[in-house]
């Protein structure tokens, strides 16, 4: 049942990230999607991939996007 919940969390956070007006919130929601995917990888018997995805998907990619937002502008106009 956990995988169903995680799948719904991923799709919801992906859609929410794309309809946000505030780009910083979008970056954080991208991190939600990546983190949920790391747990899914663990369910799929791939713990090594899950470790990498937890670092890259839940931390590095949102931080990159947040840095880019900080250097440019925060609102989606």
């Amino acid at each position: 049942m956990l995988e169903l919940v995680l799948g719904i969390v991923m799709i919801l956070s992906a859609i929410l990230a794309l309809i946000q007006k505030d780009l910083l919130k979008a970056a954080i929601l991208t991190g939600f999607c990546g983190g949920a995917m790391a747990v899914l990888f663990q369910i799929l018997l791939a713990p090594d991939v899950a470790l990498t995805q937890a670092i890259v998907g839940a931390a590095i990619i949102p931080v990159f996007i947040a840095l880019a937002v900080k250097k440019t502008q925060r609102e989606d106009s």
Partner: protein
Amino acid sequence: MAQVQLIILITSVALVIIGLYSAIFIDNIIKKIIGISFIEEGANLFIVAIGYKAGGVVPILMPEMDTSWFASNAAYPLPFGLVLTSIVIGASTLAVMLALVMVLYKKYGTLSTKVMLADTSKQEEYNE
């Protein structure tokens, strides 16, 4: 096909479609790039789901395991190795794209794709 795999496949297809939609139709360049990262994540999720085996074990051979039992019960580890590479490639392309966006923002002062990536041949004629 196990039920887990089916759910995962639906999730990955949904991610790819959401990503393609945003990459084509959304105007804001940073949201476009977020969408592109969703396409990559969907592809990765799909490939990991190939290696899954219902009721299997993690493909790491422990000393106390019987080899033939392990061979018939472990998940298929080749796709996992491929996805490790693919995740890192995705992060690096994302970083390069964001760097180019930062450079272009200094020039245009906006994140709108219509302004930033308009047809360059027309821009050149306009400048002349």
